[in-house]
């Protein structure tokens, strides 16, 4: 097997299809490439391992999302179970079956379309297939409503990969997070499929207007309309609430985040500062309400009076902070810059949430906005280093060249 594939690789070498073959080959075997210049030994990590680690952190969210798709569907039909039991009501085959039939196709379409475009560009441009889409392809199904039509997803993925990434030169060169670019495309092109109280529950849109109509509003959606929601704090924390496929379980997201921090793959600085930023904005809003500056009839009242720390439990904030804000390519690249970058993501997310009741979720917009500003933040951080160097330069001890001295002597005597 190893030998045969090696022969095949040599056969394809230099041909147009080589990148496509190599992409598949390197998934099976780590390549036989050895060092040519510089350090003769290299550390064990490569981009595939890095991306794979992020995917491992996402798998629990995906599995939970599958069960939750079924749970929300059946609960919308039969009502939420009293005396909720994890194994009787949540981790059941019926729930999983709904997940398999709704979530899995999203994953397949996301990966299928995205990777096909990646392969196509690699073959046309003659570079290796880069691994960036492995994570993007997994993120996309987790941040959209469960019933998003597959053709819509396919178009959005094609748009996101081509415009969001490939036109800039592929993985490592893009300015905006590709997964969020896809999400934003869906949001602006098909807004009715991305918000409202029907889309979060499987079959909610299909059944609308019939006698069997079902619905499920997200916590944020309810708050934006000033109405109450029926979920307890523990529901929100464990994730038994409606929402995009993978974003609901704060517990699993936190575990995934801790795993990424422990494995040193994602930046703890961004995560921590984003949490601080979100809490800060939440506290400011709570303070405004407590001070009585906001009349109760204001349409922002319910969202502003929502306890500040609970913002982290609902919507996509936790998911965005852990998995999207920490994208190293589109985020701030300096350690100092990461503090500012993360803080503003958290801060702006909660702000957009409160002031944008038409669509009460601001995380993806906040992250995309900060993606745009990340290079600016880095610019100023790096400038600090440059200034320090310039300051040092003032005390520089520079001796003239030996030949210059002779020249100056000559001119003096002449």
């Amino acid at each position: 097997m190893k030998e045969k594939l090696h022969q095949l690789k040599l056969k394809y070498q230099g041909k147009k299809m080589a990148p496509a073959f190599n992409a598949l080959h390197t998934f099976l075997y780590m390549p036989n490439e050895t060092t040519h210049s510089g350090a003769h030994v290299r550390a064990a990590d490569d981009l595939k391992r890095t991306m794979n680690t992020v995917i491992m952190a996402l798998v629990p969210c995906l599995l939970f999302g599958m069960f939750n798709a079924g749970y929300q569907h059946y609960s919308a039909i039969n009502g939420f179970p009293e005396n909720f039991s994890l194994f009787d009501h949540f981790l059941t085959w019926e729930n999983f079956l709904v997940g398999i039939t709704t979530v899995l196709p999203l994953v397949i379409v996301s990966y299928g379309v995205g990777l096909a475009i990646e392969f196509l560009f690699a073959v046309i441009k003659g570079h290796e297939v880069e691994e960036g889409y492995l994570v993007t392809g997994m993120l996309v199904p987790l941040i959209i409503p469960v019933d998003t039509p597959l053709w819509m997803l396919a178009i959005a993925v094609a748009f996101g990969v081509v415009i969001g990434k490939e036109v800039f030169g592929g993985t490592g060169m893009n300015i905006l997070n590709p997964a969020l670019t896809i999400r934003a495309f869906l949001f602006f092109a098909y807004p009715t499929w991305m918000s409202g109280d029907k889309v979060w529950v499987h079959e909610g849109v299909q059944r609308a207007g019939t006698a069997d109509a079902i619905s499920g509003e997200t916590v944020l959606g309810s708050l934006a309309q000033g109405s109450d929601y029926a979920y307890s704090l523990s529901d929100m924390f464990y994730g038994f609430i409606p929402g995009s496929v993978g974003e609901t379980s704060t517990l699993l997201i936190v575990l995934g985040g801790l795993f990424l921090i422990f494995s040193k793959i994602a930046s703890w600085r961004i995560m921590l500062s984003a949490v601080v930023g979100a809490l800060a904005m939440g506290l400011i809003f709570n303070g405004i309400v407590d001070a009585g500056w906001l009349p109760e009839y204001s349409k922002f009242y319910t969202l502003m009076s929502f306890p500040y720390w609970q913002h982290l439990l609902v919507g996509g904030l936790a998911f965005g902070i852990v998995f999207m804000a920490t994208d190293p390519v589109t985020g701030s690249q300096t350690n100092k810059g990461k503090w500012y970058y993360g803080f503003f993501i958290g801060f702006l997310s909660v702000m957009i949430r409160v002031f944008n009741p038409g669509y009460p979720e601001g995380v993806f917009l906040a992250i995309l906005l900060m993606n745009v500003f990340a290079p600016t933040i880095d610019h100023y951080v790096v400038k600090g280093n440059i200034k320090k160097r310039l300051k040092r330069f003032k005390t520089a001890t520079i001796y003239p060249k030996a030949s210059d001295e002779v020249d100056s002597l000559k001119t003096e005597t002449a």
Partner: protein
Amino acid sequence: MSKDIRIKKGLDINLVGAAEQTISKAVTSNVYALNLDDFHGITPKMLIKQGEEIKAGEPLFYNKNNEEMHFVSPVSGELVEIVRGARRRILTLKVLADKEQNYVINKVPDLDTADADTIKTYLLQCGGWPFIKQRPYDVIADPEMTPKAIFVSALATAPLAADPDFALRDKEQEIQAAVMALSKLTPGKIHVSVGSSRSPFNDIKGVELHKVSGPHPAGLVGTQINKIDPVNKGEVVWTLSAQDMVMVGELLLTGKFNAERVVALAGSVVKEPKYYRTKIGAEISTFLYASGVKEDRFRLINGDVLTGVKTHTEGYLGFYNNTVTAIPEGDDYELFGWNKPVFNKISSTRALTFSWLQPKKKYDLDTNTNGEHRAFVVTGRYEEVFPLDIYPLQLLKACMVKDLDEMEQLGLYEVAPEDFSLTEFICISKQPHQQIIREGLDLLQKELG
């Protein structure tokens, strides 16, 4: 009085096959060779023709840009071959050694009274100058310039590198002579960094002694410069390796260019890794096979595994090297190597890699890149092993896009390619950092002179 410098950021790469601290005398080599690539940026002009006889210490060629700068033969004998490459560029000069060695005996300057020009001229004429390197640009020092300080690193933290405390013991006299001479060449200080109390540099007079500790790259002179007295735009510092101080010192004391050097032969492929006494340019096989090798196919490196130059069993000891390393080649496939847990390789992450569990364990690394070349993706990782007050990723990118202003502003003056050997080692995108920096330095030198 010594000043302590503690380096926190970095990574010690512990490899199996460290040289045992015993010195054997290597078999005398038949042919000695100078590899011209060792002298980066020097265009050689030959002084003797092929087939002519030469004495040890007699000039073989000079620097086209500075006729006074001579490069001398390590041994006496016949110049048997001038190996040329594309455009007749000289690659290697081979000297067939005489049985009885004849040395040129130069007239030694009086170190107490000699002035800077006398020392300079002596070192330039007698072949001692190429041991002095300069920053910026990491090239052989320009004798026209006056450095603000001279730096010597007398500790080695690179993996399997020769230990100067052991290899240079009892050389205090030579070192003191070199220090006396070099102190005439700079109005500033001579900074020497040592790692232990065993160092032969501890009792040398006329130097600023620094006690340096911490993980690699604490032993790289670039790290020490950055912590002690960083290079500013327009400034020049000179650097010498500890073992080259001894060579310069002997040249000043005896008038003889003695190319003898103690070299560590190390690496997991070597059966009996230990130290050998040999000469610059000697055939590596003269001591490699004395220690024996465990396999037929391996990577032979002139230098340490991070900064050395690839060579082969018919190769010759490099001009600046005091370590020769042999490690396994890694040109094999590994099934699911990218996602399975890794226990036998070093990693700076914990992404199913477990080297963090045993920081003291010694590893047997091969030359496999452990992944393919990619664009820069991950951020914040280089900073953890890069103790210099410089933004490594930003500087590398500035070099790649050839932005001269930014290269200057971000501190390219201060670094040498070797300072980026550790970031290259941990690079997830497998980018050639040292090559990028080398090309950046060359460009900067070409544009700004």
